[in-house]
């Protein structure tokens, strides 16, 4: 499904990462695999360091710290936005929505459209689409889009498939009216493959209990509980390789641009290997598709695209503009992409929490 927007822009972007950093060489001591085998995986996938929360830090803690930073630095006025979209798979509570938690903790105005969206690795693009659609309302002039996840607390440290790559973080993206040209997007979803990425317990279908907390042998030397994230690595890898290249081809055709005209491909960051395979298939030079987020910070779901942008393209997005193709793919399963000119931002940086 295609989407078209105009007269909308991203005016600022802040990424908040936990200061706590874990190293793969320390993590691998808890895996049930020979060290040499894990080190080979480190080399291919790009595992090295990842940022994870400590001491019960929740999504709203990262988000509130980031928002307060923007208020303190006078980069955003407390009353200068009309909607707060929170995209997350790790809400503070089942209810109320985390957007309301953030609104309350920051004492924001009551004339504020607060809404939560349960999305993951495609969540930045889904959130932007929501924001652009909301801006069609005359009562909404500026929107704060928060992507946030603290899923490390729901990944088994004895799961070598998922733990080394998981990262936590938040991003705050200010979206408003203003012209940087046309914006093209597309989105597809496939709920029949929903089990490929799932945390089975913790909702109403399978409430958490002492049984769901028990580590089980997954049959491949990994151990995880029903309370933990379960990723079918092979299925997810195949899904991405099959669906993402044609999605991008279709998007660029819709936008009437050639792949060479795109300055950067800022894609979700599952691991280095998967991104290099996508780049090879799409015949995109590696330097146009940065793949260094998992090795430096980990995969923080919907926060990886803002992290790619702030870590690799900060100067180019603050001073001038670039033609960027975004793509996110993961839980749902969902795959989405967007092409837009982005830049002249008033802020674009990464801060640590605390």
């Amino acid at each position: 499904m295609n989407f078209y927007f105009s007269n909308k822009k991203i005016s600022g972007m802040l990424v908040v990462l936990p200061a706590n950093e874990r190293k793969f060489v320390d993590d691998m001591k808890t895996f049930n695999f020979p060290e040499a085998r894990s080190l080979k995986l480190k080399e291919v996938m790009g595992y090295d360091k990842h940022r994870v929360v400590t001491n019960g830090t929740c999504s709203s803690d990262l988000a509130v710290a980031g928002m307060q930073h923007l208020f303190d630095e006078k980069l955003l006025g407390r009353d200068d936005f009309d909607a707060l979209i929170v995209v997350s798979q790790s809400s503070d509570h089942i209810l109320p929505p985390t957007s309301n938690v953030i609104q309350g903790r920051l004492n924001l105005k009551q004339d504020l459209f607060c809404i939560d969206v349960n999305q993951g690795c495609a969540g930045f693009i889904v959130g932007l689409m929501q924001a652009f659609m909301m801006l069609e309302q005359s009562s909404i002039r500026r929107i704060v889009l928060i992507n946030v996840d603290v899923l490390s607390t729901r990944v088994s440290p004895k799961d070598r498939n998922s733990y080394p790559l998981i990262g936590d973080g938040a991003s705050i993206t200010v979206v408003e009216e203003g012209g940087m040209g046309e914006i093209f997007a597309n989105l597809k979803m496939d709920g029949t493959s929903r089990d490929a990425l799932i945390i089975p317990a913790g909702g109403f279908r399978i409430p958490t209990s002492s049984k769901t907390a028990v580590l089980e042998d997954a049959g491949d030397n990994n151990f995880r509980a029903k309370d933990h994230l379960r990723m079918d690595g092979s299925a997810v890898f195949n899904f991405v390789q099959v669906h993402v290249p044609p999605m991008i081809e279709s998007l660029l055709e819709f936008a009437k641009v050639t792949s060479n005209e795109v300055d950067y491909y800022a894609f979700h960051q599952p691991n280095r290997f998967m991104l290099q395979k996508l780049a090879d298939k799409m015949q995109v030079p590696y330097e146009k598709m940065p793949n260094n987020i998992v090795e430096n910070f980990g995969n923080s779901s919907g926060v990886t695209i803002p992290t790619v942008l702030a870590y690799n393209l900060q100067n180019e997005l603050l001073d001038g503009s670039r033609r960027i193709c975004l793509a996110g793919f993961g839980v749902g399963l969902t795959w989405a992409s967007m092409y837009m000119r982005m830049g002249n931002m008033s802020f674009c940086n990464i801060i640590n929490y605390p």
Partner: protein
Amino acid sequence: MNTIASILAQLRPEIKFEESNNYINDGLLDSFDIMVLVSELDKAYSISINGIDIIPENFKSQAAIEMLLKKYEVNE
């Protein structure tokens, strides 16, 4: 020992691959081993195996790997 066998031996030195008819069903290679194997094959033969070819079926035996490599004009 040919190149494929040599790469497999380096990947899992404790395994006797020649005793298995199906590396996947016998639990000798998991999905992450396959990615490492692909990376090593890419390097050894200066190719880039297409992402859509990276499915367990193509890595279940030495014969299956050889068949896949033929697509990339590699003859073991």
